[in-house]
């Protein structure tokens, strides 16, 4: 009973606060007669969402699912794989790591148009931008995770004459999981931003980034806000999903234990 009310309180506080902000926003817009082109009222944004669910859905599938999530999955797998390779082969540590560092420093506004030239206007180029953005945080976090075991744990594996692969799968990767999930949380946020911004540099006539840039030009600010709301909800949901999986995988970590 007490636990249930604690959970209710955890949800009720941010929810109540959010509703209060929306009400204040509505009252301010009405009271000061702010033109919709500057800041539409929440009710107008709500109306825009209700009016254009079909467009929002198509944009969402194009950008969030095809661009961001595909890119996120590919980039995350590539980052972890590269970390395992770099950890194994010293030549890669000295060669590949600085290059990855360099790629991570490339500005997205420079990379996106090039990816469009390489992979075309459709979602493939957006996923490619996301892969580039996501790769480095995944790589660095996984590398830190693989280094997180202490000497005694590795000695123990040595007393069993464990192979490199056995030590990796039975000790170092499980121990690296909290780090990998940290990287994944950073990556989910980056993925959505990357997929949206990449559409500014060429896209088919759908997608959240495309919609935002064209509706701004047509002063359809309520539609811009509608896309922003969808992207914020998507980002939050994606983050929550990763956190949920994390809780299942790293239940043993001190930061997760108290919830059991």
């Amino acid at each position, binding site marked *: 009973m007490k636990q249930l009310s604690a959970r209710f309180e955890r949800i009720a506080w941010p929810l109540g606060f959010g509703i209060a902000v929306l009400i204040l926003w509505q009252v301010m817009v009405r009271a000061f007669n702010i033109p919709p082109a500057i800041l539409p009222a929440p009710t107008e944004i709500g109306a825009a969402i209700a009016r254009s669910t079909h467009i929002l859905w198509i944009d969402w599938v194009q950008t969030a699912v095809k661009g961001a999530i595909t890119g996120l999955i590919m980039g995350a797998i590539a980052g972890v794989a590269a970390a395992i390779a770099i950890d194994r082969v010293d030549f890669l540590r000295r060669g590949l790591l600085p290059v990855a560092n360099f790629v991570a420093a490339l500005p997205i506004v420079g990379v996106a148009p090039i990816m469009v030239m390489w992979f075309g206007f459709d979602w493939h180029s957006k996923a490619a931008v996301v892969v580039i953005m996501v790769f480095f945080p995944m790589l660095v976090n996984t590398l830190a995770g693989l280094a997180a075991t202490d000497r*005694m744990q590795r000695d123990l594996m040595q*007393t069993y*004459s464990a192979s490199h692969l056995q030590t990796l799968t*039975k000790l170092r990767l499980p*121990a690296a*999981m909290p780090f990998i999930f940290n990287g994944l949380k950073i990556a989910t946020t980056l993925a959505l931003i990357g997929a949206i911004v990449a559409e500014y540099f060429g896209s088919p006539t759908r997608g959240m980034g495309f919609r935002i840039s064209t509706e701004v030009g047509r002063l359809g600010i309520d539609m811009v806000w509608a896309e922003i709301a969808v992207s914020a909800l998507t980002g939050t949901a994606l983050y929550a999903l990763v956190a949920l999986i994390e809780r299942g995988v790293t239940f043993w*970590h001190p930061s997760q234990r108290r919830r059991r």
Partner: protein
Amino acid sequence: MTKKPVISARDLDLTFETNDGPIHALKGVSLDIEKGDFVSFIGPSGCGKTTFLRVIAGLEQATGGDVSVNGMTPEEARKSRAYGYVFQAAGLYPWRTIEGNIRLPLEIMGFARADMPRRIERVLKLVDLEGFGRKYPWQLSGGMQQRASIARALAFDADILLMDEPFGALDEIVRDHLNEQLLALWAKTEKTIGFVTHSIPEAVYLSTKIVVMSPRPGRITDVIESPLPRERPLDIRDTPEFLEVAHRVREGLRAGHAYDD
């Protein structure tokens, strides 16, 4: 009856090269350990007792001399599963249950799946942890964790058990209890045990042979064959025989330290 030594060291030297010059962790160390012996290594920190144990286990390479385990080099002995090693900390993997932790060496060494539950159950019984197999390590006390780590070292039937201050981090009462249990386990399994400690009562209570070591360079100053019977209740520690052995260990430690002051 003359027994062939299970572990034999001849003139072992081990020098670590550091920025401050070489450190002689071991110098001229010779020792035979026979089957079924319970040998304690005792000495102040830096005397090379842990290093010696690690050389026997092949975790550290000697820079001179010979060491053989079951007539093999330490590496060969390790690959033939000659010994189980217990570290200062339990070092159980928190993402595995107690059962899962004991299963770890079995998985790595390629034991048959069907064979595992029986082995796990047997060693859990040996360390008195029946019914705790499905718990996670962090749900158990420090003493129980260390017992689980002993069970893990016993799971694959090594004849030799190497223990590096396994009870050093535990309080006196828990330690007494675990010492008693360890003796019972030793009597039951007839293993050869190498045990590093810095506690004189612990060394005297447990061992058939006490190796006193001293630092700079790490060397053996005295080897004491214990006159105590193999069966030892805790209150044997108040007998004159016990106190006499303890006194000799203390003298040995003091002699090793004499040039220090």
